[in-house]
């Protein structure tokens, strides 16, 4: 129903090229999250799909039909904006009804649809209110209802939760997941928040500087990153990365480290004597910042996350990482996987033993 296909999409603003030769397929019914730092082109991509910032080159298909030159209102999509963009001069009902009226939906049908949508987002008793009499969360629901009532093939959402307070954000997050389950339509959701991406997405599309870094499920993107950018973007704190003597990079996640007081307490390929510089006790876990023994003061530090809170500041301990938790990246910062590049992988493991 709502598969989105982008072929060779390019987008330039004057002299600046934001997207170039971009190919992307978002499957029907998928909850796809576009994530990346600000300025990476994720919103631009969303606006290309919406048609409010159409592509300068390339083709866009929704539901198998080319829509590159179609008006935004005729693409069978609906969008929720970051600042909601609800019409301030209309009532809640007027806002929801506006698109239906434009599409010449008969009055009885309109009334039925509005009642149904208002009920499902909990706005029934606010239909006569003006937006300035609503709270942030309620405005968010109006924007959502306005999108839902059109029964679009695709929902586009541009950081819809970023203007809500932390508590409401978590609540709306699970409501959106439920909504997606209920509607079974394609969602394309833009955010800069990797936690939001991880918790909501079926598929994460991670972007950097207009290029898609990886498109995969949250599990894959976390456990099997394609490159250093992905490895460091997903996960808090980010993956520790250090350069090896052969020019390649070694990475390991802070939460996969085992800290021990003695050298041979656990089996591990990667063992380093470290000094704990700072310790942050967060309750369920403890965050350590460590520096490798024998390194200078200004040398890189690494993060370690541990469920146990056994060590204190300035203690000297052993850092252990098992082989399956080590990631290798080549000089171009791309991942070296054992399955498809056994030779380089072995070389990196060898190199590691020498260090």
């Amino acid at each position: 129903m709502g598969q989105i296909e982008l072929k060779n999409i390019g987008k330039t603003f004057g002299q600046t090229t934001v997207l170039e030769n971009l190919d992307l397929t978002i499957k029907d019914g998928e909850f796809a999250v576009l994530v990346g730092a600000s300025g990476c082109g994720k919103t631009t991509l969303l606006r290309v799909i919406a048609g409010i910032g159409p592509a300068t080159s390339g083709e866009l298909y929704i539901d198998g039909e080319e829509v590159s030159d179609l008006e935004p209102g005729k693409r069978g999509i609906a969008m929720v904006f970051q600042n909601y963009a609800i019409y301030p001069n209309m009532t809640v009902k007027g806002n929801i009804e506006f698109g239906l009226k434009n599409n010449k939906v008969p009055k009885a049908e309109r009334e039925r649809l509005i009642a149904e949508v208002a009920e499902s987002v909990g706005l029934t008793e606010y239909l006569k209110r003006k937006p300035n009499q609503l709270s942030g969360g309620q405005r968010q629901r109006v924007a959502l209802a306005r999108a839902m009532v059109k029964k679009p093939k695709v929902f586009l959402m541009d950081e819809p939760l970023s203007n809500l307070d932390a508590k409401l954000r978590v609540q709306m997050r699970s409501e959106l997941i439920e909504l997606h389950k209920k509607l079974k339509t394609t969602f394309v959701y833009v955010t800069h928040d990797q936690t939001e991406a991880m918790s909501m997405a079926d598929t994460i599309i991670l972007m950097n500087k207009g290029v898609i870094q990886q498109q995969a499920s949250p599990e894959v993107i976390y456990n099997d990153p394609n490159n250093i950018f992905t490895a460091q973007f997903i996960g808090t704190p980010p993956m520790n990365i250090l350069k090896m003597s052969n020019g390649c990079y070694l990475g390991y996640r802070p939460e996969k480290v085992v800290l021990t007081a003695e050298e041979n307490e656990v089996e591990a390929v990667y063992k380093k004597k470290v000094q704990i510089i700072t310790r942050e006790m967060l309750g369920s876990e403890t965050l350590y910042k460590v520096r490798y023994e024998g390194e200078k003061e200004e040398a890189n530090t690494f993060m370690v996350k541990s469920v146990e809170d056994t060590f204190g500041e300035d203690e000297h301990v052993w850092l252990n990482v098992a082989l399956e938790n080590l990631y290798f990246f080549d000089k171009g910062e791309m991942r070296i996987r054992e399955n498809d590049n056994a030779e380089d992988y072995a070389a990196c493991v060898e190199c590691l033993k020498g260090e």
Partner: protein
Amino acid sequence: MEQKKVDKPKKVRTKRSLSTKLTPYAYTMPAIILFLVFTVYPMINMIRLSFYEWNGLTEEKFVGLQNYNYLFNLQVDFKIALQNTLVYTVSVVFFLLLFALIFAVWLQKDSKINAMVQRLMFFPHLCSMLAISTVFSWLMDEEGLFNAVLSFFDLPGLRWLNDSTTAMMSIVIIAVWKGMGYHALILLSSLKSIPTEIYEAAALDNTPPVRKFFRITIPLLSPQLFFMLINITLSSFKVFESIRVLTKGGPGKSTIVLVYYIYEYAQSNLKYGVAAAAGVVLLIFLAILTVIYFRLINRRVHYQ
């Protein structure tokens, strides 16, 4: 509990010395004095004078409501002035808002030409009405530029200010020309402050352009339009300079307006009492208008 909280500062206030209490009044005293001397006193004096007969030289003579009787029953020229003022005001308000809106929408796109046009359009606002009137008296001369343009297109020339049927229209044209740029700029800046997402949402809602303009743009401009409506109405009610320079109320009585009527009765006819009574009527009109505007239209205006 809450009452006690409210009481406390009151107690402190009563303990304050007299000088502390008077300080704010002392600071605002210059403004208050100016306001009393130049606004309140003349107003009261005008109301008082409207019950007297006075030519500026002789003793003032109390005549009760005779001056008002003179205005409304004995002479027709006050009613004509009232009617003319109404015609002028309605025309100026309508055409000024219309053209300001058209130009604001037209100049919305950022381009070098538009930036230049904006500055040029603001220029008439900076010129004095006196100078503009003088220039227009040449332009609207029967041998002037306007008629030259008309004859170029083989159209018959108009007598503009010299014909009782076109004189008021000519005065309106001048007022609209003078105010257009200023009001277009106000509208332009508020047009630009409308979030683009609103228009994008409208585009996604498949909104036809005309509907977008009337259902979104106009309502979102309504605070400014309302402000302009009040401003233009009040200033149009007080129109004087252009009339004084260009037509002196003529031809016949075709361009006599309220303020010009007052001026004429005070300065030429030396009937200060009648002039004062007309002033009172103008005052009442303006007061009523202001109240009506704020009461009625304010409800329909959307403020962001």
